[in-house]
């Protein structure tokens, strides 16, 4: 199965096309079946993945437009492998727990196409193919937010689309410029990232190109001044939209930094450490404070998700193995935890048709199962030891401590701030007497809801206690990347900054 990546990418797309034929009543079962098969395919990918190999595996390359240097070029390494797994898992679980009944067939087809683009982004090794899936992912998401969302859905979906589209067009110009330089130096057109890695660019070129790519990735993450589209998108999107958006789509931005910006522009990345770290810290602290001020549970989770993306960004720019591995791990943990939290909010919204905290209170006594799972996810979001959230956050802070202890302390405050607003949510909604009569009649989680959440709870605890099987392949690939960056860097400052880990540090 050397071509498993192509199967992974195109299986949901073909299924989506065939889905037009499937009857409305059976669409949901069809979607879940397809997503399950896709998830098992991605598990298969994991089992046949050689964890000791840090390089690209399952590489496929088919020239598409040789005159322009564009080819269908895919591969997977430790960094992308688990994000793909998470994408297929979250699509499956999101679909299982989905409560939408209106136009269900359109939703299933959109989700399947979205799954293709998500997997495509993370396996692409050709910049244009990456860009292709990156842009294409906007279309189904636009429809999901716009068709099933809240009252401001059209505004939210257009804002989401235009923000990302504008940023990525600047990134496209950057890509074209890199290809042009590559052509000037070698005489061949190529958009293959592995070819681009070999380019050693002068620092001023690196800075401009870093800025161009930054526009595309930072809007997607979303970094601090560009984050305004996200609360709208989350606030208006249906549950499944928020789940996929928070779990997978945002990761495209941080993944882009790891895949493109760092290895291609090591010197510029080192120069950018402080500005990016400052922006990320603002993101961490400011959005955490905003989250505390929200009245709507979903908005709290949306802002907390932005805040945690800040931690991931800091880790990426720590320029050492702990920081980057930690932030890749944190991408996974954030995906699972915030996805689960959005699902939980969606479940209570389905029952009460409100997300305002003031409407709830004392839910723990009526919905014990719900309260337990919510509590576990909340602890994981805060970063309690023995949950998945702790591992990533700890590694990120450990890594960034070597760059700047002061900034690390500020970033560490996010754990405290996170605990403040998250526990406030928990206290207001779950504890105390039941003040609202309507809440007394609430039903606890039904079987479908419980079973869609239990795997996530299991993962949260499993990877919290024993992260090694996931962390090790990530760490291998990250170290290989850092070695490579260190060799490639031109300036001495960059060489000093990029820490090449000699021995792997074990966590726990």
């Amino acid at each position: 199965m050397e071509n498993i990546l192509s199967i992974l990418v195109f299986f949901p797309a073909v299924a989506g096309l065939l889905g037009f034929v499937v009857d409305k009543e059976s669409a949901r079962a069809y979607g879940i079946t397809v997503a399950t098969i896709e998830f098992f395919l991605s598990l298969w990918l994991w089992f046949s993945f050689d964890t000791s190999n840090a390089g690209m595996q399952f590489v496929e390359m088919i020239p598409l437009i040789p005159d322009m240097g564009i080819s269908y070029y895919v591969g997977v390494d430790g960094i992308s492998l688990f994000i793909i797994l998470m994408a297929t898992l979250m699509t499956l679980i999101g679909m299982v727990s989905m409560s939408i009944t209106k136009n269900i067939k359109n939703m299933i087809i959109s989700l399947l196409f979205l799954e293709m683009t998500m997997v495509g982004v993370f396996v692409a090794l050709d910049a244009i193919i990456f860009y292709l899936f990156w842009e294409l992912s906007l279309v189904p998401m636009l429809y999901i937010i716009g068709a099933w969302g809240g009252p401001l859905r059209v505004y939210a979906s257009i804002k989401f689309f235009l923000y990302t589209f504008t940023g990525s067009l600047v990134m496209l110009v950057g890509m074209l410029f890199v290809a042009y330089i590559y052509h000037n130096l070698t005489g061949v057109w190529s958009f293959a990232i592995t070819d681009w890695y070999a380019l050693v660019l002068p620092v001023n070129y690196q800075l401009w190109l870093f800025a161009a790519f930054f526009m595309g990735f930072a809007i997607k993450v979303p970094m601090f001044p560009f984050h305004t589209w996200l609360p709208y998108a989350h606030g208006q999107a249906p549950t499944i939209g928020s789940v996929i958006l928070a779990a997978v789509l945002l990761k495209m931005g941080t993944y882009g930094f790891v895949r493109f910006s760092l290895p291609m522009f090591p010197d510029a990345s080192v120069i950018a450490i402080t500005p990016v770290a400052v922006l990320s810290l603002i993101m961490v602290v400011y959005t955490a404070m905003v989250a505390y001020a929200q009245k709507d549970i979903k908005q709290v989770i949306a802002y907390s998700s932005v805040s945690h993306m800040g931690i991931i960004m800091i880790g990426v720019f720590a320029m050492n193995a702990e920081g980057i591995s930690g932030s890749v791990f944190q991408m996974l943990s954030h995906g699972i935890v915030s996805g689960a939290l959005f699902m939980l909010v969606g479940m209570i919204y389905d029952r009460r048709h409100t997300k305002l905290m003031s409407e709830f209170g004392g839910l723990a006594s009526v919905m014990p199962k719900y309260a337990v799972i919510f509590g576990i996810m909340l602890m994981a979001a805060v970063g309690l030891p023995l949950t998945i959230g702790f591992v990533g956050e700890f590694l990120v802070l450990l890594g960034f401590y070597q760059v700047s202890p002061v900034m690390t302390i500020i970033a560490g405050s996010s754990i405290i701030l996170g605990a403040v607003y998250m526990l406030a949510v928990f206290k207001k909604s779950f504890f105390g007497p039941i003040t609202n009569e309507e809440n007394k009649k609430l039903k606890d989680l039904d079987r479908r809801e419980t079973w869609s959440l239990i795997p996530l709870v299991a993962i949260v605890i499993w990877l919290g206690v024993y992260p090694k099987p996931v962390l090790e392949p990530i760490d291998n690939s990250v170290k290989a990347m850092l070695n490579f960056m260190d060799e490639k860097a031109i300036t001495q400052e960059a060489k000093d900054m990029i820490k090449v880990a000699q021995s792997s540090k074990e966590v726990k």
Partner: protein
Amino acid sequence: MLEPINVSLESLNLITLAPMLVAITGGLIILIMDLINSKLHKSLYVMLTILILFVDFGTVLGLNVNERGFFDVMLIDGISIISQLLIIAGSMIFIPLALTSKRFHEYSYPEFFALFLFMISGFQFMVASDNLILIFVGLETASLSLYTLIALHNRANSYEAAVKYFTMGALAAAFFAMGSAVIYALTGSIELYKVAEVLSTRLNETGLMIAVFGSSVLLLVAFAFKISLFPFHTWAPDVYEGASAALAGYMSVVPKVAAFVVSIRIFGMYIDLGIEWVRWTILILAVITMTLANIMALVQNDVKRMLAYSSISHAGFIMAALALDTTEGNTAIFLYYALFMFTNLGAFTMLWISRHKVRRFDKRYDHPYEKFAGLIQIMPMGAVVMGLFMFSLAGVPPFSVFWGKIYVMQAAVNAGYIWLAIVMGLNSAIAAYYYLKLVVYMFLKDPVKDVDVVYYNINRPLMVIVGFATAATVTAIFYVQPLVSYLYYMISASGY
């Protein structure tokens, strides 16, 4: 006593005229058939036109590159071959739009098809010559036919459109004639290759620049009218609105290809001579055109007017590629139009099949956005396909226009105009907004009224065309490579 002039038939190289003669003969055949039997159905004429164009296409393919003929006024170089192929292919895919289920006035006249073929021969003359007089003749033949075709639509605003287009076209023709006259006065020749020779030897003469300035400005105005560049674009939305959707879609591609070829020949010559301000004038016009048209398109209430402004903006995009004056820039022009053609065909066909005899949704417009509201609920396939064309026009990969866009931007980057590439990128982002507007109406809003009959004009042939356009739009990634390499080869073979 004058010696009798002997011209050997051999030296005329009449084969270079063959493609145009095929089209003209075809038009005459259609007229004769109408004389013999006036009861023939339009479907016969449509098919006959396609067949004639097929022969025409074959004849062009058989031409040798870099030949001259017919007293050396015909120039068959790579550009003229690919542009003729593009013109014929564009005509072939647009003419079947006449096969509507409802009866439209113009198609009941065989003259429509004869004029259509005469127009194509006019365009072919225009692109297959570097003689300013023959270009003028071709331009006028084509334009006069086109004015008539628009007016044949037999509605108040199509007369308005035709007259407006005619007046503007006449003005452009006058500018063209004056520009050519200045060139003739300056160099004593109307053949562009001789003009280039003379100019290059005399370029540092004092006072020559003023004359060069005069000629190039006059010619630029003439072609800015034809290509609808700012500030000469104002006719375009009204004309598109008045013309039938089929013809409007046609006008946004084929006449512009012909005008671009002549522009490459004329302005490419000026830029090659090192007259930098011609390049800058074109660049500035192009940037203003794409930006302004994009902003205007944002505020339109009618889908057809929006598409009209969008095609102005696309023309600005391509004009910028022309100013680069590199082989890649010129390839980009043809590649862009070749890819744009399919998507545009699809988009305008979708408008055409949703055309009602009377305006049911709005007093003023045929295709207001409200007409398409909630289309996903009424006709999911139609909405998906139309949405696809909109995303393609917006430049979302992997649909066809994206590959044209990326090639233009790459050409700009390669020529050192990175700011231009960024301007193009930002413009695409503005453009995305108005294309999304239609998508939003179709997918995210609820239907307004009587929606079951949006696709009033649909029938099987039109569905086949839409299917073809969809396939061509979606699978672009697979045929871009042969297309690029062929175009690049042909253009570099003719020395541009």
